[in-house]
C-alpha cells in the first residue's frame, strides 16, 4: 500500500519559525496528510508565534489560539459544536508543545483522553519552554542544560506516551519528521481512527538544543537511531510496539555529544543512560535481525504527487 503525499502546502512560506525548526517541518508534513478538512487548536507554544503575527497567518486551514492549559478542552468544544452542526468529517487537532502537554496542559489532556473524545492531540516536544527562553519542563531530559537548570537537569523525562496510553485511547504513537514514511503513515492512521488519538513528536530546536540549524534533522535522527527516542505505537491496551528498528543501535553518547545543551554531562551519567536505553529497547523487542527485514520493507512507502 502506498501513501500519496500531495504537493499542496498548508504551511505558508515566510513564517517566522527559526531556521531548522523541527516544529515547522513537522506541521508541514502533518497538514499534507490531514488536508483541508481540519481545524487546529493551539495552546501557547512556539507555534503561537510562528503562526503570526496578526494580521498574517502561516496556516491555510482554520486555527484557534487558546490559553496555555486549554488545548484539549477547547478542542473538545470545537469537536462537539461541529458534531452538532453535522460536520463530523472535519478533524480537530490540538497542536501543543511539551509545556502544553506534559505540564500545564496535562490535566485537560487526561480529561479528554479519559472520555475518549474524538480529537487528535499532537505534542511537538522540543524538551523545554523554548518560546520563553529555554526553561526546563517535565519533558526536559536528564543532563540537559536549560536557563532554569544551569547545572543540567537532574530528573528523568516524564513518560508521556505511557501516561496517555494508560487512558486506553484509540491511538497513541511517537514520531519524528526525519522519518517521513513512518511519520506520515502514523498521521494517516490517526486521521482515519475515531476517538482520542495522541502523537508525541520529538521536535528539534536549534537555539534551545545548542545545535547548528543545518544539523537539526541529523540530531533527531540520532535520537531515534540510538534508542533515546524510539518510534513506537501503542494499542488500546497500552502495549508498545516498535515501528522502526535501527539497523545498529548508535551509542547514546553520540546523541549527547551532538548537542551543546548536554555539554556538562559526565561520562558516568551517559553510561547510566546507555544502560537504561538498552534495557528499554530490549523490552520493546528490539533486535538487529528484525531490523534488517524491517528496513527493507520500509522503503517506498509513500509517493509524492
Amino acid at each position, binding site marked *: 500500500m502506498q501513501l500519496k503525499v500531495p504537493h499542496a502546502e498548508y504551511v505558508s512560506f515566510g513564517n517566522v519559525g527559526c531556521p531548522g525548526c523541527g516544529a515547522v517541518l513537522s506541521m508541514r508534513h502533518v497538514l499534507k496528510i490531514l488536508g483541508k478538512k481540519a481545524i487546529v487548536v493551539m495552546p501557547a507554544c512556539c507555534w503561537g508565534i510562528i503562526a503570526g503575527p*496578526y494580521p498574517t497567518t502561516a496556516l491555510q486551514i482554520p486555527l*484557534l489560539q487558546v490559553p496555555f492549559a486549554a488545548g*484539549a478542552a477547547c478542542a473538545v468544544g470545537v469537536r462537539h459544536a461541529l458534531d452538532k452542526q453535522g460536520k463530523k468529517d472535519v478533524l480537530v487537532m490540538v497542536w501543543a508543545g511539551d509545556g502544553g502537554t506534559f505540564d500545564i496542559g496535562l490535566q485537560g489532556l487526561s480529561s479528554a483522553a479519559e472520555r475518549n473524545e474524538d480529537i487528535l492531540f499532537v505534542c511537538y516536544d522540543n524538551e523545554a519552554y523554548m518560546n520563553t527562553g529555554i526553561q526546563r519542563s517535565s519533558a526536559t531530559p536528564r543532563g540537559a542544560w536549560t536557563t532554569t537548570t544551569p547545572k543540567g537537569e537532574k530528573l528523568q523525562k516524564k513518560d508521556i506516551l505511557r501516561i496517555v496510553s494508560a487512558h486506553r485511547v484509540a491511538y497513541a504513537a511517537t514520531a519524528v519528521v526525519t522519518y517521513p514514511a513512518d511519520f506520515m503513515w502514523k498521521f494517516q492512521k490517526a486521521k482515519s481512527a475515531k476517538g482520542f488519538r495522541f502523537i508525541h513528536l520529538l521536535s528539534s530546536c536549534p537555539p534551545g538544543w545548542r545545535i547548528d540549524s543545518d544539523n537539526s534533522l541529523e540530531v533527531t535522527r540520532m535520537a531515534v537511531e540510538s534508542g533515546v527516542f524510539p518510534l513506537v505505537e501503542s494499542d488500546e491496551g497500552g502495549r508498545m510496539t516498535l515501528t522502526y528498528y535501527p539497523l545498529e543501535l548508535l551509542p547514546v553518547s553520540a546523541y549527547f555529544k551532538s548537542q551543546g545543551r548536554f555539554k556538562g554531562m559526565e561520562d558516568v551519567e551517559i553510561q547510566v543512560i546507555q544502560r537504561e536505553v538498552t534495557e528499554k529497547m530490549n523490552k520493546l523487542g528490539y533486535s538487529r535481525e528484525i531490523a534488517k527485514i524491517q528496513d527493507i520493507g520500509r522503503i517506498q512507502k509513500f509517493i509524492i504527487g
Partner: protein
Amino acid sequence: MSREMMMGSDAVAYGVKLAKPDVISAYPITPQTHIIETLSELAPLWGGRFINVESEFSALSTCFGAVCAGSRAFTATSSHGLFMMHEVLHYFSGARMPFVLVNVNRAPGMPWNIWSDQSDSMAQRDTGWLQVYCETCQEALDSILQGYFISERVLLPVMVMIDGFTLSHTMEELELHDQEKVDRFLPPYKPTFKLDIDDPVTFGNAAPPDHYYRMRKELQSAFEKSFHTIAECHLKFQEEIGTSYDFIELYRFEGAETVLIVSGALTGTARVAVDMMRDQGKRVGLLKIRFFRPFPGRALGKALNKSQKGIVLNRAVSYGAQGSLSQEIKAALYNLENRAQIYDVIVSLGGKEVFPDTLINIVEQIEKDPSHKDAMIWL
C-alpha cells in the same frame, strides 16, 4: 405559559432549556450544582450536548471552543470556579465571542465559606463581560434569555449573577414562558465569525501593540453600544414575553432624601426596609442596580441629586480601597455638579444575615451623623 413553583437553580436550567444551546460544559461547585444536575437531564430534550469535564477551567475552555466553532453554549459556576475560569473570561471578550455564564455568587476562601456575597463576580469586573445581578429567580430565568439576545448582537459575553442559596436554593412561583414566544424573542444563533474549513481564518494570532490597542478600543466601544442593544432587548422582551426590565430600578423614590443603593437578592430585603421606613413617614427610597456592566452611570446621575444621601450596600470590598459598588457609583457621579453624598457600607460578606432592621439601623446612624461619608461603614 404556565406558572410553577421552582428553585432558582431550576429556573436557570429552565431558562437555558428555552435558549437551547448546542453545548453545555460544566464542573460542580456548591451552590451551583443543582443547575448542572438539572441541565444534564434536560439537555437531550433539545439535542444539546452536556460535557462533564475535570475543572471549571476546562468547562469554560470547552465552551470557548464550541462558540468559536459557531455554536451557542452555556456554563454555570460559582466563586472558586469563576476564579479558575478567569483566564478564559479574557479570551471570550477579547475574541468577541457571545456567551452566557451563570455565576451563583459565593464568598471566596479562606476561610472556607459557601454562602453568598459578590466578591467572586466583582473581582471579574475588568474582564470585558457584561454583568447582570438578579433579584429574583424569575429575573434569573429572563436574564439568561436576554443575555443571549444582547450577547449575540454586541458580540460580548454576559455573566448573570444569582445569590447562592438565597436564590439558587429558594422556591419561587415562576412564569414559564412558552417556547414559541421565546423563539420569537430569541432566534437561533447565527455566528458572525466562526472556524470554518471553507473560509479558513486564524483566531487570536499575536497582535502587535497598535493592532492590540485598536481592538481594545473597539471592545470599549462595543460596551458603549451595548446600552442601545440592551434597551432594544428590554423593549423586545416586553413585546414578546410581556415583562418589563431596565438597567436600574427606582422603588418608592418620590421625594426620597435617603436612597438605599443595592443589587442582587438583598434588594428584596431592602424593599421591605424601605416600606417599613416609609410607613414611619421617612423619606427613604431604593435604587436597584441590575446591569453592573455596562455600568449605568448616566441613569444613576439622572436619578440621584445633591440633596440626597446614597447609601451603597456593598457585598464585595476592594480591600485597601472601598466597597466595590461604592467605587463605581462615586466614579460615575464625580464629574456631576448635582451629585448625591455617597455612603460606603459593607454588609453581608460570606452570607452574613441582613434583616430589614439592620438596614433601618444603618439609615438611622447615617442620618444622625452624616460625617460617616468619610469612612467605610462596617456593621
